[in-house]
């Protein structure tokens, strides 16, 4: 107040400049702060995921190509034009298949029936066995008049995608209905299963205990020999040879679906957690079924493998000590013992109790043969390989199945497994992506990095590729025959990508962070800063307003009271100009 006027003016000016610079910094900084502290979320193609869950752009369908070979050993009655007759037979087969399949879902396994022009000349079984079909989804039916004396229709399904239908009466009607019934019985249940799977109507089956393990690109098989004590004399087993002989062909065939790592171990002095009961009359010890769930001595038998992170399947041979043999599984004294003396734990593995004479210290390959056969059948169950010879429903004529001697399976079953696993993988990957979508939508705090986006996009591309591959599996790739396998590979990749996106370590929204907490953190910082800033701004504005009023008053006073204080006038103008800048 006592200062000279120009000095006050200069101070005012500096003060205003400082205030202005702070506010500019804040106004510029705010968007930067907003942008940099924002949760980074890469865009995920959720609409596309939603579309896929309806299968709106591509629905997986596994076309089956049925080649029908008619024997020309006997000509059909009334055959005038073989070309016409062939067409008639084909259309009749298709009609009959359609009318005889009340089950829905025929679009999942569309049938294409082709009558091979070149007639089949042989009538011997060997002629069929010599012509395997290597293409999954393409099957050859060889049809001939029955050669047996009983004069009845019979069907024999060979292991390499061939079937031999022997019809009782060599007429067009008989031939077509025999083919149609065979197709319906072999593929009918699979068709509905895939339909349910794709439409996600398998919820009621989900409640049931599933024996088969979930799909993985590799499994670890652990074969363990547990020997009760030294009294049974077991020292070693020829497991490697037994695996090579009995398991390897099967595993090699199955490796189109999954790879296998095999290991084995022997543990001595393996005791049970309980004493088996003695059946005095039969002179044998027995395990009642209610004890079997506790058969494995989890505390002492080391079964967990830390070698690989593959899902593991365990196969146990238990040789009881001499004072507890023979050891059988039966429900009580006097009851008939279990035929195989073995049982299966769903999704875990198989166990067999082996009773043997105590004099031989080495379990030989031939001694292991029945055990390996049991394990093989348990492994089939665990891998979800359905057994056609037991699952095909009864009909008007018998269907027999001939398994491959080495692999003990038919390629028909392998194809079924391939189709099932492809569908499961596709459904699972889309479900996983759907879960991911819900998760991201539910947790706004979660960071979604670019690799996640890439994984999701790639998974969708793989789903698409798999779907397209199976669509064209029968027609396009007759030469290579690997379309279905490629589809499996794509579906596996899709599942892996989807899971790696879902289980990505960055996808953890760290802590629940309520808004009150955010205020609690920002308040101590921002309140002390903002109070002087806001107050000084208000003060400046007030001053400016006051100065303006004063200037007005002065201006009006000047008008009335004449000329006064030029310098002040100039100063006022300057102030005004500065205020405009601030605005």
């Amino acid at each position, binding site marked *: 107040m006592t200062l000279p006027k120009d000095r006050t003016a200069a101070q005012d000016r500096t003060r205003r400049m400082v205030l202005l610079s*702070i506010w500019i910094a804040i106004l510029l900084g705010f968007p930067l702060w907003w942008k940099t502290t924002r949760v980074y979320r890469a865009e995920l193609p959720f609409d596309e995921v939603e579309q896929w869950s309806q299968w709106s752009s591509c629905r997986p369908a596994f076309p089956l190509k049925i080649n029908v070979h008619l024997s020309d050993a006997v000509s059909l009655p009334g055959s005038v034009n073989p070309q016409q007759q062939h067409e008639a037979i084909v259309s009749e087969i298709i009609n009959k298949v359609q009318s005889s399949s009340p089950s829905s879902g025929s679009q999942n396994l569309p049938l294409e029936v082709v009558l091979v022009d070149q007639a089949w000349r042989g009538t011997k079984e060997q002629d069929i066995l010599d012509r395997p079909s290597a293409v999954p989804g393409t099957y050859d039916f060889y049809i001939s008049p029955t050669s047996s004396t009983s004069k009845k229709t019979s069907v024999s399904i060979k292991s390499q995608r061939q079937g031999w239908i022997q019809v009782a009466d060599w007429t067009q009607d008989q031939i077509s209905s025999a083919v149609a019934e065979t197709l319906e019985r072999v593929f009918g249940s699979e068709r509905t299963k895939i339909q349910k799977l794709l439409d996600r109507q398998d919820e009621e089956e989900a409640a049931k205990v599933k024996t088969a393990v979930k799909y993985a690109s590799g499994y670890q098989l652990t074969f363990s020999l547990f020997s009760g004590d030294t009294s049974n004399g077991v020292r070693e087993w020829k497991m490697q040879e037994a695996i090579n002989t009995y398991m390897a062909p099967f595993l090699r065939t199955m490796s189109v679906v999954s790879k296998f790592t095999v290991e084995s171990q022997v543990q001595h002095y393996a005791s049970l957690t309980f004493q088996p009961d003695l059946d005095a009359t039969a002179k044998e010890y027995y395990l009642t079924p209610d004890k079997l769930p506790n058969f494995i001595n989890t505390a002492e038998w080391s079964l967990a493998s830390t070698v690989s992170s593959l899902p593991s399947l365990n196969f146990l041979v238990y040789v009881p000590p001499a004072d507890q043999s023979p050891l059988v599984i039966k429900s*009580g004294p006097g009851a008939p013992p279990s035929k195989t003396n073995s*049982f299966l734990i769903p999704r875990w593995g198989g166990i067999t109790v082996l009773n043997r004479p105590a004099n031989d210290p080495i379990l030989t390959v031939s001694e292991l043969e029945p055990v390996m056969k049991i394990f093989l059948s*348990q492994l089939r169950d665990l891998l979800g390989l359905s057994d056609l010879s037991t699952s095909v429903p009864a009909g008007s004529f018998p269907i027999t199945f001939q398994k491959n001697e080495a*692999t003990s399976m038919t390629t028909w079953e392998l194809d079924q497994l391939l189709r099932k696993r492809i569908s499961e993988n596709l459904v699972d990957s889309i479900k996983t992506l759907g879960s991911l979508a819900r998760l991201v939508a539910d947790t706004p705090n979660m960071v979604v990095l670019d690799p996640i986006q890439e994984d999701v996009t790639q998974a969708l591309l793989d789903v698409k590729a798999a779907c397209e591959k199976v669509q064209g599996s029968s027609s396009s790739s007759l030469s*290579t025959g690997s379309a279905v396998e490629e589809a499996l590979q794509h579906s596996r990749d899709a599942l892996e990508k989807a899971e790696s996106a879902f289980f990505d*370590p960055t996808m953890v929204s760290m802590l629940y962070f309520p808004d009150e907490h955010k205020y609690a953190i920002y308040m101590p910082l921002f309140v002390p800063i903002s109070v002087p800033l806001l107050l000084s701004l208000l003060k400046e504005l007030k001053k400016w307003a006051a100065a303006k009023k004063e200037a007005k008053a002065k201006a009006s006073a000047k008008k009335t009271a004449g000329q006064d204080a030029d310098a002040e006038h100039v100063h006022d103008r300057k102030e005004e100009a500065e205020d405009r800048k601030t605005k």
Partner: protein
Amino acid sequence: MKPGMLLRGIVAALCAATALAVTVTSNPNDVEGFFEKSKSKSGHTNNWAVLVCTSRFWFNYRHIANTLSMYRTVKRLGIPDSNIIMMLADDVACNSRNIFPATVYNNKGQPLDLYGENVEVDYRGYEVTVENFIRLLTGRVAKDTPRSKRLLTDDQSNIFVYMTGHGGDEFLKFQDAEEISAYDLGDAFQQMYEKKRYNEILFMIDTCQANTMYTKIHSPNILATGSSKLKESSYSHHEDFDIGVAVVDRYTYYVLEVLEKIDMQSKATLQDLFNTYDFNLLHSTPGVRKDLFNRPLDQALLTDFFGSVQNIQLTDTVESSPSPSSIDAPLPDSEPLYPDETAALDNSSKEAEKKLVRRSLEHTFEIGNPDQSQTWRYAAFIVLSIGLAGALAAGSSVL
């Protein structure tokens, strides 16, 4: 006294039930039929246990003893070590104040050494964090995490989750450093449900105001039980004067009293356990939340969660004719079997595969990887704050 009578009654009932079960099922002609009956209703094929002690330091001896007691129980009832994930500060057994080195006891007079010779602690000491716990449950662990630190459950797993420590209204403290809230827990379970990582969960928590911890769970098939209600403390049971600290909590002590009396074949149900809850013994109000659980509690066996009773299937068919064939080459030692890829794949798909492999290698993420951190954000933040601070200093000196 009264509770003793109750327990005795339960045990008697159990014996009767087991005897009954045996008589019903010992029909001599029916091995097959038995297997149908013996399927437990829970529909699980494997059991897992996650046991978490969130406290550390000597005076929290009892929390570690609680957890080790539960560990001993589930192991005794048949859950293998590979299926038990234990998170434990594990700092009392070898604490310099422990006059019984390398032991942990849960009762006065030290009748039973819980530490024993075969304790497998999966997350130890400072690894017991909220982050690790959430990652464990949701499966979002770093890629190089060993198998023993992963919860490898599937849609047919029953999981027993036990937590103990110091808690409050909707939170549980982790080692005096951080806390997990009821929301975090509910979210983690929901994510497990989304990915079908469990069949059923039994969540048990022993802490102050424990029942508030399960209020935010909203996923199906979860049964939750806690030791005390809102604004109520949970108390320790008794002290061992030789050790010098309380050795077990009341709630856990009385739960263990029930569990000690069952074995693998037991038909005792969860309802039996909950019936033994008694305010006079616990000095707090234990709670049970069963609205998310689909089965009646008097049909849910204790061994469905604390034990490892598996469904079994009798093998009756044998493959007909795999006979030895001399053509097959022997397998190489411990080598994975690979298919003949040369015939199966044409060139283009091989290339595609290679590309995918390379891609998947590129995307390896590790927690704390500097490439993934957002250094530039910190830099921008620092520059901005320096600018602001300078401006502020100038401004305040003038003002």
